[in-house]
């Protein structure tokens, strides 16, 4: 599969169809994967594919990365889950479908965090998203590397995130409030969650708007709560549950719980799941006469 990927990348660069291939390569010690930007057909052997390829590289397609955009048309190595983010970027007019070449990777799942890797992909080191994945055969791709996956997602979603959400839902509002205040209290306002997210593409984030300062920048309980809540709201109906924010969080805030809960709310209210159809707009930015509006009482 790695060879098919490298061959395809070589073809695309040699023919000039794309100017850069955004993919995964090894770190120096070959213990972790890291994003690479291949611009020369002779370098395509640097590309790797394995269960350590966790990063959602679609972030590099956003306008936050002007240096990468300046290289010319990109090809991107993407898992089905990553392609869901690309679909949202297209639906929100951030990129045009024809301006990116998608090399979809048929995927058997990845590790939750690279540090957990001990040479074998076992279910207990995979994130919840992989256990319920319905895009192991990548959609929307220009080319698919690998064989069709022999996997059917369970009818009722399984995994730690869903267990924890059920647990939290069974609690009283004040207990839930206490839970989140405690979790957010660790936030160090490094904004890794925002930066690693391909759907947080605003050039000027609301936290940087300081006349007036809408969101307090201090990492005190009030500032942390307002930051994490505003981010959750801004991703509602858009987030694909790729899990990058939780992976990047240096203080282990369970952001997957926030995002998955919002996904469930949107599914209930609008029967919408983001990232499958690049022509469908996220429900929070469109008005539809069919909206239930049952929250108006």
């Amino acid at each position, binding site marked *: 599969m790695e060879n098919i990927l490298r061959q395809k990348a070589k073809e695309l660069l040699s023919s000039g169809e794309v100017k850069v291939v955004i993919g995964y390569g090894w*770190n*120096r*010690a070959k*213990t*972790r*994967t*890291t*994003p*690479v*930007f291949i611009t020369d057909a002779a370098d395509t052997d640097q590309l790797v594919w394995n269960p350590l390829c966790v*990063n959602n590289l679609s*972030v*590099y397609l956003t306008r*936050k*990365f*002007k*240096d*990468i955009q300046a290289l010319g048309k990109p090809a991107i190595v993407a898992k089905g889950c990553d392609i869901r983010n690309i679909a949202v970027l297209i639906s929100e007019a951030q990129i045009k479908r024809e301006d990116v070449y998608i090399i979809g990777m048929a995927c058997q799942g990845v590790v939750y965090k*690279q540090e957990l890797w001990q040479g074998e992909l076992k279910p207990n080191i995979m994130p919840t998203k992989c256990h319920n994945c319905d895009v192991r055969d990548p959609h929307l791709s220009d080319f698919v590397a690998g064989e069709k996956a022999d996997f059917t997602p369970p009818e009722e979603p399984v995994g730690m995130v869903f267990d924890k959400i059920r647990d939290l839902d069974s609690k009283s509002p004040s207990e839930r409030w206490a839970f989140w205040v405690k*979790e957010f209290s*660790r936030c*160090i*306002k*490094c*904004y*890794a969650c*925002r*930066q*690693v997210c391909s759907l947080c593409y605003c050039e000027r984030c609301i936290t*940087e708007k*300081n006349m007036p*300062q809408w969101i*307090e*920048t*201090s*990492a*005190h309980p009030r*500032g942390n709560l307002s930051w994490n809540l505003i981010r959750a709201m801004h991703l509602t109906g858009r987030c694909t549950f790729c899990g*990058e924010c939780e*992976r*990047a969080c*240096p*203080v*282990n*805030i369970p952001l997957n719980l926030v995002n998955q809960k919002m996904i469930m709310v949107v599914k209930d209210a609008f029967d919408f799941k983001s990232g499958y159809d690049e022509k469908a707009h996220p429900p929070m930015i469109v008005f539809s006469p069919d909206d239930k509006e049952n929250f108006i009482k």
Partner: protein
Amino acid sequence: MNPARLSGRMKTVSMADRTLKKEDLGKLIDSVRAKGGRFVAPALLARQVVFRSVKSAEEVATGYILARNSFKEFLFPQTEVIAEFSMNKDSVGLKGVEVDAPETVVFGARPCEAASLKGLRTLFTWDFVDEFYTKREDKTVVITVGCTSGDEACFCTTVDLSPESTEGADVYLRETEDNGYTVKGLTEKGKKFLDTHDAVFTSGAAKERPLFKPETVPAVDLKRVSERLKDRAHYDDPVWAKLTMKCIGCGACTFVCPTCRCFDITDEGTAFEGERRKNWDSCQYDAFTLHASGHNPREHQPQRWRNRFMCKFNFYPEKFSSKGCVGCGRCIRVCPVRLDITEVMQEFSK
């Protein structure tokens, strides 16, 4: 670094003053707390070992390589109030804030991170004495423990430090085979601390566990790095973009770094009443150097990365004769895109 020189030095640190038995750590914590002090040690929080204020020995983590955070946040908090203001029809009120500087013991720091104190001190006393830092540091006793384990991100030996470096530490401990420690007072402050809590310690010989010494990163020459950075020619070198284009511009590396110390001043509250805060800031944010005019001298992420690298390997050593990087490897571990500073060091050693 010459490995022979390093192993030679290693033998010199064995003359311990005292020993601390495993079961007596709780007594030390009690003894410090009984005098009104705060005892900061690596402890578990949300599946991570972090420096926290602890009340008992049970909370103190063992078998960790390095805490997720550096202990700098107990000297230079992530957010703190430095003044208060109020305003009404007749007057404007400005009020300074007393520095909250409790007696503090930092236990279980690693020799690498303790070496960051010199640089922090120099910076916070450079042209203005920032008492919010100095008063806290003055009241802090730093107890380091020589490392008996490490991981592939550790690179202290590459920046001329080692598990038995004592720079910045007041007391140096070595783990013993029976899970206790040998204890050596290094500074006046450290010796005084040991005398104050003398009843907790024991004497006698104990067998020390071997130290873990990370291998030096191959092909790194700090002198050469510094020379190349001094020459402005590197400024627009395409190699910066090549190495750091993947940086997503979060501040995680700077916030876990023991030597990073940039901050921002922000006012919170209403127009009539509020407080002025000193908050950690990061040179990796695009707004860090954004001018009011709209001009940004470091508009691209590789330029911001260049600045961080320059700060560590040129500005700090040149301007303050102190270490800008102590090789703890936190930035490598925490980076969501696995950008490895030692790979940049290798490139600039060429």
